[in-house]
């Protein structure tokens, strides 16, 4: 209930309204509650959200299919035709999605048959690391919307090292990767510093830094002597030197590159960080209750800086994967490919848990790989995949909606001895508990 509505107007209002330098930490914003609600959803909710999104996507596919439209014209004389057309259309679309993303039954060689799953993993590689970066920031209570900018800066740093410094095999790759990580970390760290020093809200700062990065990179790509390939008039860099490229994992027939191993290692690292390390403990404490963290002597502002450095660095790895793995022949300003934003979805779907993000990243990789196959094979616009992805976010952001659709019990009402509080705080507590059980 509105217990605290009037109870303490001054401290909350004053510190919230004017985050002056040196003033106390802004109080846990409402957005933290939103984050917690979203992350508090159980695995079940995530899975149901995906299913529900696919169902709605199927309806859209059917509605936009010409055969279905034609058959529905005489629905009352021969309803079977319409139903059949719907089945053909939807099953065809999702069949193509599956064949494009997992296993191609029609392939005449083994390589062709399993290529889709490797494509999925290739697409998943940057999504996983970027998702980890965004998710880690979520856990410390920060919305990192700046994945695009961090990726671009990282890609530029990494690509610059990759094409301009001839270094020995191995060392070159490591230096190029590190350059990208540092670039992303700096671009993310700026956000953390601004938030800690001035109280500037990270959402606004990250979005603005995205613009700065986009135009900065575009400018550098058009400027001879900067990132632009010598002798070219296109806004594009030179190709990477072969010593800096992520090696192929399964040989030249597949696109899959060693970036995947980096993503797996990053997942393990973030898992260790969050569950086993002192720093991660502080991040989590700051994320759910910055007040208690501060009273317990944890330096909340420093945590914001550290987590944004790490978050930016991880997102930077996505930029590195793009430059050193996916597009090695020189990149342009579209190198981020929207991954910085997809990462937010991936982090949400994975409930900001490292392995959840890993799985969510692979799922989104599959959507990307399958979406193209669907368009090529069935003529269904690739946008339908975007719609499905968006629907997933929508359903995850609205757990009560999913619960209502599937008639799941509302968590939290049951076990709280103080009912008035139950309405505000317990869904979180109870559903995180539920998540533990579900895990």
């Amino acid at each position, binding site marked *: *209930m*509105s*217990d*605290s*509505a*009037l*109870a303490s*107007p*001054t*401290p909350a209002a*004053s*510190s919230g309204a*004017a985050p*002056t330098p*040196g*003033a*106390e930490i802004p109080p846990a914003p409402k957005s933290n509650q939103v984050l*917690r609600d979203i992350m508090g959803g159980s695995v079940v909710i995530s899975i149901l959200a995906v299913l529900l999104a696919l169902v709605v996507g199927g309806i859209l596919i059917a509605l936009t299919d010409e055969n279905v439209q034609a058959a529905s014209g005489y629905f009352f004389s021969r309803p079977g035709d319409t139903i059949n057309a719907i089945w053909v259309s939807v099953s065809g679309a999702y069949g193509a999605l599956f064949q494009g993303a997992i296993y191609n039954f029609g392939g005449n060689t083994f390589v062709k048959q399993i290529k889709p799953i490797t494509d999925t993993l290739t697409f998943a590689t940057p999504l996983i690391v970027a998702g980890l970066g965004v998710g880690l920031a979520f856990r410390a209570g920060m919305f990192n919307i700046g994945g695009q900018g961090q990726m671009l800066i990282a890609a530029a740093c990494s690509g610059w090292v990759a094409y301009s410094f001839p270094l020995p095999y191995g060392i070159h790759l490591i230096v190029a990767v590190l350059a990208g990580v540092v670039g992303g970390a700096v671009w993310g760290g700026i956000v953390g510093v601004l938030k800690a020093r001035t109280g500037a809200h990270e959402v606004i700062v990250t979005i603005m830094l995205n613009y700065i990065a986009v135009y900065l990179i575009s400018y550098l790509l058009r400027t001879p002597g900067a990132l632009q390939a010598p002798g070219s008039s296109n806004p594009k860099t030179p190709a990477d030197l072969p010593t800096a490229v992520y090696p192929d994992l399964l040989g030249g027939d597949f696109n899959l590159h060693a970036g995947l191993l980096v993503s797996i290692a990053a997942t393990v690292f973030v898992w*260790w960080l969050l569950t*086993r*390390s*002192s*720093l991660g*403990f*502080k991040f*989590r*404490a700051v994320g*759910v*209750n910055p*007040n*208690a*963290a*501060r*009273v*317990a*002597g*944890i*330096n909340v502002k420093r945590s914001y800086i550290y987590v944004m450095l790490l978050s930016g660095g991880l997102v930077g790895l996505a930029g590195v994967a793009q430059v050193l793995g996916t597009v090695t022949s020189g990149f342009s300003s579209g190198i981020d490919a929207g991954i910085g934003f997809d990462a937010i979805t991936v982090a949400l779907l994975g409930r900001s848990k490292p392995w959840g993000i890993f799985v969510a990243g692979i799922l989104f990789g599959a959507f990307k790989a399958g979406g193209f196959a669907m368009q090529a094979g069935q003529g269904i616009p690739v946008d339908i995949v975007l719609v499905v992805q968006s629907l997933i976010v929508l359903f995850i952001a609205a757990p009560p909606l999913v619960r209502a659709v599937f008639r799941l019990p509302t968590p939290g*009402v*049951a*076990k*709280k*001895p*103080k*009912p*008035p509080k*139950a309405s505000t*705080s*317990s869904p*979180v*507590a*109870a559903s*995180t*508990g539920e998540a533990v059980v579900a895990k």
Partner: protein
Amino acid sequence: MKLELRGITKRFGSLVANDHIDLVVKPGEIHALLGENGAGKSTLMNVLYGLYQADEGEILLDDEVQHFAGPGDAMNSGIGMVHQHFMLIPVFTVAENVMLGHEQTKGLGRLDLAAARAKVREIGSQFGFDVDPDALVEDLPVGVQQRVEIIKALSRNAKVLVFDEPTAVLTPQETDELMVIMGQLRDAGTSIVFITHKLREVREIADRITIIRLGKVVGEAEPTATNAELASLMVGRSVELTVHKEHANPGEAALVVKNLSVVDAVGQLVVNSVSFEVHRGEILAIAGVQGNGQTELSEAIIGLQERVLGSITLDGQSLVGLSVQKVLDAGVGFVPEDRNVDGLVGEFTIAENLMLDRSSNAPFVKRGSLQLSYLSTFATEKSKEFDVRSQGIQTPVGKLSGGNQQKVVLARELSRELRLFLAAQPTRGIDVGSIEFVHKRIVETRDAGVPVIVVSTELDEVTALADRIAVMYRGSIVGIVPGNTSRDVLGLMMTGEVPHVITTTDDSEGVLL
């Protein structure tokens, strides 16, 4: 109007918050509903007010069954509620607040403020309140704000008034005035339900007392019952309301605070040149009504306030300007007044909360990684020592009761080597059994030779624990008096007056500042 609740049952999942509760409140009667926090009083009243629907049972007004779909229905039927946390809009005037929700309008939807003003004056004069209808609510003292709430309820012709813990925020004097008002309302024929857990007030004003424990009515009592009888009904066993403690053997001064002032974020002087000392092996209680600078004073000691003037020294080491971490490292244990906001991370497990303020170094962290096995041994041990009742150390503290949560905070703070223990509102919102435990541990800490500061707004707690009492009013310390000072004197001091009896107390510690 006669109010009757018959067999009200309200369940939240498997938890039965109200179990077949029967209650009859006759017109012109003050009926006290006494129970611990979490006993189900508020749930019952929320059912009555239409905020919850009862699973079983019925509500009768003058023997007619009522069906309330929401507070609007309840209000229309003549039920008014004075909430613990006032439901007033601070930037509105008294008249605007009173009319809020049933605004009278003139043509074209213009508000008829004149009518609202007249209503406020009318009700005010009827009961002898003096409330200016055009005053902004935020400018009014808490006691007057409460009267606005009462006027608001009465302006809707409430025949049954529910007071939900009305004295929690009042000074003793304001409490006395409220008692007078409640008496007048009763004499005017209003039925009053008075929810509280304070025994003294119940015995003072109530005509009948119903005691609720764990969602059930466990007994009725007359106002003549003794405190001990009422308390044992409330908690189901005999409890000690007074703390057994030996006479203090204070050592030398450990914490010395001199001319300490604190300026808050909006530039107001919230602590005004406060000086005091705390000796080893004594408990200094800081009494006062909520919001007179106690919070800021304790935050200044722990390093949470930014703008602090004056000096704070602990065993010769200055604490002013140190980070919270450094202050904690200097050996200060701190129980914050709002454990849910400042003391615990609700989503974290008991074990994680136990290491919250030692998340950087040994023993819980080595080379940057958590020592999970040590933590789990530690947490199991401390849970047992501090009697934290849970399903295990992996239970999120948000799922524990208030008393068990507070034990987690205590376990954390008292398991370090302490040179000062500062407990703010250590027993707020916890059950009597836990209060007893917390008090016992505080006294034990004192007896171990640690200087202890207890900040409390509960006079019972202050008088039970303190060896010396500092009373704060508007940011200043009104006086420091011995622990056995009478409630009347303390009550006066809490309103800023300095009764001259202080100077006549035999103990030489009755220092006036």
